[in-house]
């Protein structure tokens, strides 16, 4: 009797806790969606709400008049796609080389990479290097080049490559294949799940990038999406900007400052929600592989 009561209490707690925690996680998304679909006047009167008090698409009309969102989208897509591909090539090349057991200096190279995880020059020297000595400010490459190899991803991939039997590469070598051919034609096709995981790590990192932009980008056409959000949220003159865009000032016209901020947020979060099912599948797998074999 006692145990069945205890079981029921445990079930109740489990279901209730997960239900509440899920709501806690999802409420902010609903809030910004609802806020972006609200009428500005009702928001100013009673604040944001989880269900729009007065439905309006005006905020979206306004933000799409400006091409800031489109150009941020374009920039972000370009550096995310280019960056992810380049990162995958360079990271997998390095990871494969140091996973080959006959490669003499592989441990030294591994330590050379590992040391950068322990100690680094810090923000300012890196900033000086990139802006002053490499001159990458206001260049789309600044999003990509300084982030080409993530040591953590590199080691994750190396561990995965290590599990692939040596005999495959050896027999290809006997047939006269070189290491580059072996990597691209034999190893990478076998490493698809690991590459997908790492690719998603990189891709998401690029997509959510804003810090680089605060340091190196002042050209509006090169803003990343997330940086645009920061700007929209912080900039005091955002309202004035919206006002100017509208051109005419009507007597009853309310500048949709608050709702337009939320609409911008919704527009940038959309793609993530859209690809989320794929993300989740691979991330969970990749994380487990990394954690167990790490």
């Amino acid at each position, binding site marked *: 009797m006692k145990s069945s009561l205890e*079981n029921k209490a*445990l079930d109740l707690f*489990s279901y209730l*806790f*997960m239900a509440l*925690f*899920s709501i806690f996680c*999802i409420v*902010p998304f609903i*809030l*910004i969606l609802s*806020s972006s679909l609200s009428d500005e006047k009702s*928001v100013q009167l*009673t*604040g*944001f709400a989880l269900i729009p008090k007065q439905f309006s698409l005006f905020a979206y009309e306004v933000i799409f008049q400006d091409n800031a969102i489109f150009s941020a989208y374009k920039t972000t897509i370009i550096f995310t796609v280019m960056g992810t591909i380049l990162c995958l090539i360079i990271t997998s*090349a*390095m990871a494969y*080389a140091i996973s*080959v057991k006959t*490669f*003499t*200096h592989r441990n030294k190279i*591994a*330590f050379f*990479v590992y040391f950068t995880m*322990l*100690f*680094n*020059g*810090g*923000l*300012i*020297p890196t*900033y*000086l*290097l990139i802006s002053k000595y490499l001159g990458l400010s206001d260049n789309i490459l600044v999003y990509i080049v300084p982030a*080409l190899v993530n040591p953590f991803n*590199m080691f994750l991939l190396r561990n995965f490559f290590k599990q692939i039997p040596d005999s495959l590469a050896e027999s290809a070598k006997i047939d006269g294949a070189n*290491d*580059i051919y072996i990597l691209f034609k034999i190893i990478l096709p076998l490493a698809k799940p690991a590459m997908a995981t790492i690719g998603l790590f990189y891709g*998401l990192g690029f997509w959510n990038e804003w810090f680089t932009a605060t340091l190196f980008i002042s050209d509006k056409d090169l803003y990343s999406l997330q940086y645009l*959000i*920061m700007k929209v949220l*912080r900039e005091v003159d955002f309202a004035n900007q919206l006002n100017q865009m509208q051109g005419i000032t009507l007597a009853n016209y309310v500048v949709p400052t*608050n709702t337009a*901020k939320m609409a911008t*947020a919704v527009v940038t979060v959309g793609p*993530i*929600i859209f690809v*989320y*099912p794929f993300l*989740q599948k691979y*991330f*969970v797998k990749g*994380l*487990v592989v990394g*954690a*167990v074999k*790490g």
Partner: protein
Amino acid sequence: MNVALSSNKADSVVKKRKKSFLSDVKQNFYLYLLVLPGILYFVIFKYLPMVGIIVAFQDFNTVKGLFKSKFVGLKNFEYFFTSKDWLVVTWNTLYLNLLFLITGLFFSILIAIVLSEISSKYFKKVTQSLVILPNFISWTLVSMFVFALLSTDVGLINSVLKALGFIQEGKEINFYANPSLWAGILVVLKIWKTAGFGSVVYLAAIAGIDQEIYEAAKMDGASRMQCITKITLPQLKTTAVLLTLFGIGGIFHGDLGMIYAIVGDNPYLYDTTDVIDTYVFRMLRQMNDMSMSTAIGLYQSFVGFVIVYTTNYLAKKYDSDSAIF
């Protein structure tokens, strides 16, 4: 005899090494070619900036550059350590990270255990998807959420409190000017964003526990609660200790991406939210004081290095397979 043999062997190894590098490159030409871009990347973007650390000992002048600026010794450090800022930012960094670590550990394990107790597959899948989702959102978007929730005039929390009659019109809580609330707010946001994702590792560990142990316990009449406290939790100990050690390894590095995105340059909140990283970043952007910022960054890197090294040593001692290197 044995000694002679082995020293002979050592000799030949030395000879082999000496002649090696060029012939090794020849022999493994393609492997070197593959590793080259990566090496170049690390040399340029990770090792070259280490040279830049000398800025910390200079009165750096952008026009004069790295090699011609005036050398001032430890003056930048002196200045930082005699100001009261260094204690504030060091304390905030350690305190916030510790709070993140403890609450993250607690909620990640709780979610993992609770999920593993849920029998409805559908409910499990849906809720798990929902709690992991925030992990994929950037901190800038989170700051938008924070605005929608906490804003004084239009924030949801203030309007709900007003609607329920807890506060009156004109007496809204001004979150953005109230530093004492922010340690709590940041902790909640951190849990919101990372606890669900953090539970994945523990779920994997739970899935790896031998089912026979549970069956044997049930045969002996153990309840589900007893199974959790006597089997599951002890089995998660290794994972928890290791993840905590790695967390402690990073404890001297504040979460700049999070805190700057959410707090920004709001001076009202510096007392409780300003960490070493945001401080360095502000020095750079507002004061344009490269030397000071580099000095503080070096202080952070150095102490951080000692901490990582120690925790990695401890992790190795605790479980020899688990150290990063």
